[in-house]
């Protein structure tokens, strides 16, 4: 296993202009995340979890300090470079699933590969494997509107995972799901993390999510207040029935 740091955050501050004042959402954050971690930013509402995740995801930039993701400084990326980074190396999972409504499940999962210009035959194999991994191969032709919340989030996971990204960023992925579905998608992600060594970073205050984390980074008022390694998480992927693997 490669233990090198893939995310390096140093002295990061993020301030938002509010009227003619500045609101500090993150201050003096220092953080190193290594490949294959299954970690989460936890903390009360407004503590800055989403803000930090967005910066790591190159959707936003630090006001001060630096964030190096996969060797690239977020602050220095051009629009195009940032979009390339997201396209190739980052997978996003959102609280509200954010599936593209007019596309089928298959087309939603296929989308990142279209952007990557993956050849058709290979694309098809990858999409089917990703759908298989989230146990949704039979829903390939459905439209998002026809899916349950749990199914939608699993499609979103397949979409994030299909290109085999280095990092998956999941912001409150279980907030709209019931307990059963929450456990199911978390177990899917644990399994993918174990099988593919993909780095997962969550932002959540959901106890169920926290129960799976192997590292808990607590934020409060924009500061990292604790950073705990958990050797034996409360829950694990052991419950997962099948051992599906994604082909690359």
């Amino acid at each position, binding site marked *: 296993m490669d233990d090198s740091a893939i995310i390096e955050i140093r002295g990061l501050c993020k301030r938002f202009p509010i009227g003619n004042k500045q609101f500090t959402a993150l201050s003096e954050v220092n953080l190193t995340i290594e490949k294959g971690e299954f970690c989460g930013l936890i903390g009360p509402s407004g503590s800055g979890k*989403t803000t930090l995740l*967005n910066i790591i*995801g190159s*959707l*936003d930039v630090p006001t001060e300090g630096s964030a190096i993701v996969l060797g690239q400084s977020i602050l220095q990326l051009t*629009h*195009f470079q940032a*979009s*390339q980074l*997201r*396209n*190739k190396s*980052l997978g*996003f999972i*959102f609280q*509200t699933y*954010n599936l*593209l*409504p*007019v*596309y089928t499940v298959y*087309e939603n999962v296929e*989308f*990142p590969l*279209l*952007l*990557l*210009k993956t050849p058709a035959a290979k694309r098809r194999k990858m999409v089917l494997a990703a759908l298989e991994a989230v146990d949704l191969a039979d829903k390939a032709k459905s439209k998002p509107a026809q899916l349950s919340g749990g199914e939608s989030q699993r499609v979103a996971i397949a*979409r994030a995972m299909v290109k085999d990204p280095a990092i998956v960023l999941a912001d409150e992925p279980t907030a709209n799901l019931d307990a059963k579905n929450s456990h199911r998608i978390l177990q899917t992600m644990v399994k993918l993390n174990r099988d593919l060594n993909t780095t997962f970073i969550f932002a959540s205050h959901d106890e169920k999510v926290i129960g799976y984390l192997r590292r808990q980074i607590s934020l409060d008022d924009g500061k990292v207040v604790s950073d705990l390694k958990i050797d034996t998480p409360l829950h694990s992927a052991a419950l997962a029935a099948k051992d599906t693997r994604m082909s690359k």
Partner: protein
Amino acid sequence: MITLRLAYRNLMGAGLRTWLNTIVLSMAYVIIIWQKGLLDGWNYQARHDMTNWEIGGGQYWQEDYDPYDLFTLEKSHAQIPEALTGMNPQRPVAPILIGQATIYPQGRMQSCILRGIDPEQTVLHLPSAALQQDIAEIPVVLGTRMAESTNLNVGDTATIRWRDANGTFDAADARVVRIMKTNVPTVDQGQIWVPLARLQQMMQLPGEATIIVVGQDTNETGPQEGFVFRDRKYLTKDFEDMMQVEKLSGYIMYVILLSLALLAIFDTQILAIFRRRKEIGTLIALGMTRGAVIRLFTMEGAMHGILAAFVAAIYGIPLLTMQARWGIPMPDITDNYGLAISDRIFPIYSAGLITGTTCVIMVVVTIVSFIPARTISHLNPTDAIKGKLS
């Protein structure tokens, strides 16, 4: 390429709205082509008829002749120049002597213009040969409009009163020998066609003419003493001016039609960009640049133009082909404008007209789609993902 595919998927996914916009745009498409084709067809047919019935390859006018001032007729006549007499088959000409007169059909009185033409002329389509009759009365040919307004039929007689070159009034009976049907009102309304030699004799102007029409393939025979050459362009100026007005009113209609269609697309675009903020944020998170998203949305809007072209083709091609083949019947009232118009116009749809219209529509649809899409560049992706306004 991928943009094209995605745009197509999105557009199809939008369903009814897409088709509504497309149908409105396709109607603008078909109506513009139809209107323009009709105008082109009329233009072509009118020029053709005017050339055949009135203008020929141009006319020499006696230098005092002014068709808008009837008082000039008294002095606007001159000896037909040597070069323009005779029936040279290489250079056919048709001299016409014009004089003012009054006709008394069934006791009523109506002023008219006498036009003397050589019965043997071949320059104009006028059935002048019918004038070659050996009868006591003056043989005359009338157009259908004139026949109707004087209530005269073939074989009827009426008294004509005119003034000769010395200003002396004279009168004689005329007999209608032929009624001709023409699309050119100016050779019909108020006109009475008589044999040239007879009119010269009546007006005591032997060997003289007011205008000399030259054959269609004949060019100017050089300047002629006492005559001015008027080319076809000069002679069709009135028609040209009227066409210009028609075209302008056509353009106004296109602008209105297109605006309606474009407004629908513009509105759809604005709404789409407002409602689909979350989708836009997601596309950016998935690795599209904002430029690519703008292109995608512009393409989506512009594709209405492509769809509309297809839809327009489906019902437009059969419709327009049918009209080009069978012609479009024109109501009788158009006759009263005094313009050359037949009772059936055959529209002409040129390749230039169709490609031109297509290009214009594509360009304006693209612009109209791009303007709202441009606002995407100000969208903050982190807000957009949550569906928030920024």
